[in-house]
């Protein structure tokens, strides 16, 4: 060990705890942490599906599966870019707000200015610009991403309210109607298909490109990446911009599904996107996780919300259960040794 190792040796990491008496519980925890981190969500998903089916057989009906996929599409889309940001050790709390702002801007452009298809495509660029704002504040101004995106979350929401003048804007003639209602594959909504295509693209980027590798490197050891001559700030900026882009596109999908942009469009997605990422097992400390886990997290979250609905659990209880699942998920997936690095 290096000689300068003094107080920074974490005195109570899990491994050492296990040697203490009355630490059987911690032994189990350690086992789960070592082997169960990627596995637990995979095991929980069939258990949940089985449970809900036992209570209400309509849960696995084609109609309900279709409903679930419709719900999962926007959430998956919005969580994808945010996963990249979490993977590099930062956090993006503003994705829901970016989705709302993009949808609002598109709705106004389409209905009031007759922009049509262009307005729809524009959501992606609006999202990228908003992601750029996050990148500018957190990277060039050197502020923690948690604070920056907490701030921009509020700013973007405010701008959305201005654009919509505080009310819902309906879009009668939607371009891409086929994307909103169509099913290229029977019983799979095109919106979900679009999210899956972007997911496949990002799985590839994450695993087989320089961008994906460098994000993992930055998340796992930013000083190492920096001293190895990796342009850290460039790749961090790119991650925030991609996060904005998928959030913007997610907003467009929501606009298509709902036929209107409302001020509260993105509210649910702030917590759900982070929850999906974390439940899947991507560590908030960065460097561990990825796209497949987020897909898993989205699946779990969707099954849970929909299942609780179908089985008739009260909405109030649903919130409690969802919160418990998030806590339980983090309990098994978090690496306690690196807790102090949480959210750079």
């Amino acid at each position, binding site marked *: 060990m290096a000689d300068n190792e003094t107080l920074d*040796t974490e005195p109570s990491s899990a491994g050492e705890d296990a040697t203490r008496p009355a630490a059987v519980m911690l032994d189990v925890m350690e086992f789960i942490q070592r082997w169960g981190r990627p596995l637990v969500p995979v095991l929980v998903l069939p258990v949940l599906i089985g449970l809900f089916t036992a209570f209400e057989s309509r849960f696995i009906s084609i109609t309900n599966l279709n409903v679930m996929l419709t719900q999962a599409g926007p959430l998956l889309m919005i969580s994808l870019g945010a996963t990249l940001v979490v993977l590099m050790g930062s956090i993006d709390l503003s994705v829901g707000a970016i989705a709302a702002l993009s949808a609002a801007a598109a709705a106004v452009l389409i209905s009031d200015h007759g922009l049509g298809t262009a307005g729809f495509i524009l959501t992606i660029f609006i999202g990228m610009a908003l992601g750029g704002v996050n990148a500018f504040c957190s990277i060039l101004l050197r502020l923690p991403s948690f604070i920056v995106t907490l701030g921009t979350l509020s700013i973007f929401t405010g701008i959305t309210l201005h654009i919509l003048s505080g009310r819902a804007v309906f879009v009668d003639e939607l371009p891409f109607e086929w994307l909103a209602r169509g099913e290229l594959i029977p019983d799979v909504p095109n919106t979900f298909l679009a999210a899956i295509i972007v997911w496949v693209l990002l799985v590839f980027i994450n695993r087989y490109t320089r961008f994906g590798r460098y994000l993992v490197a930055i998340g796992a050891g930013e000083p190492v990446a920096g001293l190895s001559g*990796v342009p850290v700030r460039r790749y961090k900026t790119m991650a925030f911009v991609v996060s904005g882009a998928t959030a913007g596109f997610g907003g467009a999908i929501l606009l298509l599904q709902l036929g209107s942009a409302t001020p509260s469009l993105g509210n649910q997605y702030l917590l759900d996107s982070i929850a999906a990422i974390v439940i899947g097992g991507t560590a908030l400390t960065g460097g561990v996780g990825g796209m497949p886990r987020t897909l898993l997290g989205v699946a779990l979250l969707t099954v849970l919300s929909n299942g609780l609905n179908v089985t008739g659990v009260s909405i109030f209880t649903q919130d409690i259960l969802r919160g418990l699942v998030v806590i339980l998920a983090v309990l098994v997936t978090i690496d306690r040794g690196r807790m102090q690095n949480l959210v750079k």
Partner: protein
Amino acid sequence: MLRIEGVTKRYDAQLALDNVTLSIEPGKVTGLVGENGAGKSTLLNIVCGITRPDRGAMQLNGERFDPHSYKAANTLGIWRVFQEPALIAGIPLYENLFLGHEIAFTNRGILSRTRMIREAQRVVDEFGIHVDVTRLTSEFNYSIRQAAEAVKATAVPDVLGLPRTFVLFDEPTAALSHEEVPHLLGLVTELATRGLGVAFVSHRLKEVLEVCQDIVVLKDGEKVAQTTATDTDEATLHEFMVGRVRHADFHAEDRQGSGLRERIVLSVRSASCRDRAQYNRADAQKFLFRDVTFDLRQGEILGIAGLLGSGKSSLARSLAGADRMDEGQVTLLDTAVPRASTVRMKRKGLGYLSPDRHTDSLIQTDSVRFNLSLPSGDRDEYGFVHWGGIWKNRLERSETEVAIRKFDIRATDGQKISQVSGGNQQKVALAKWIRREPGVLILENPTAGVDVGAKGEIYGILRDLAETHAGIIIVSDDLPELIGLSDRILVMRSGRLVETIDASRDNKPDEAYVIGLMT
């Protein structure tokens, strides 16, 4: 008496302590000496409850002693003076002195700050450092913070009414100025004459021989010798520490200078850097290094020696582009580099290895091949990317195989770095730069925490590199290594280059001579 029996501690693949048994007696100063990575700090961490041993036991005055935190060790009378002052920067000094023991100043739940400040001021004055304890800790310079650390371990227990039977000093003089050292050594001796047991960890053998009665030598986690100050001398201790006298074969000195060319690969002219650290705001004119000028030739190994805080490490980081330099011209491989960054320096042919493998030079949670390819993400002859940024995974595998064979790295390409031993980790870190055929390679403590066998191999690798094309700068605390490898040694003191020593094959300087220039 504090007795340590058969203590073993392993960190991943590295054995930090291997079955160490020793005792520290009251009324005596026991010296613990050893190289970087010998296990001295780990041993102290275990004694004062910060780390727990994997195996082994401790006894304090005949009773089982198993502290689970530093505070628990405190209440049993064990105190430590930390090497890097473990003080919180943003709170007043008096709060740091009594940190964790505020209960002693609390009456029915109300904390009496006036009493805390009064007591803190008294002990600090008695110690001989006259500072205002209500000022923020960050406003004090390093030596005052180091002194405060000593006050915390020596005077505070009395104020709190806690026992104080053993005090552990961890490299207390490493960053002190020449004048401050005798004062601290005096304190160490005084504690022992008052009947306390003292453990004294230091690299500086002269100090150890001066203040200690018993001396224990650690090497690669093992106790290799136990002796008394009267029975030994500096040379013998040194031999125990490194397990050898500095000898020419180990550093492949017969190959020294064979690659030396006239061409200058790195030239540095009047480089300076101000100290921006917040605790030095009081004397803002302080420089990390100032007016440094030197040339590095192709095929040359240039050593930089200096104490902690001499500016040698800051200079290395600035040259690598990791820290900003305020003034000076740097010319790397015939091109001037006005604004260095790690990205730019890398592209122009410079490699840099930080002394801290764990946090700075390798991604511990990823594989050998991931680390090997990390610097090479450009589309050049060393790069691993196709058009569009797509990674050449197959090339990465085959290149890793090549490096594993070439550098005899005992690991597989997909193995997680944290599961690879220190020496092999360092070879991976070296390989990631050497495969890029750098014109200049800057290394800090390249063999810290590396076993002797791997050390010899690393020296061989560096000789190969110098013979082929590169100029190498080695910044090291390990003097035998520095003297054995270098063609020339620059000595830094208080941020300035004070001497250039010739260290050619037949003209190796004496270690004591270099130490003399450093202090």
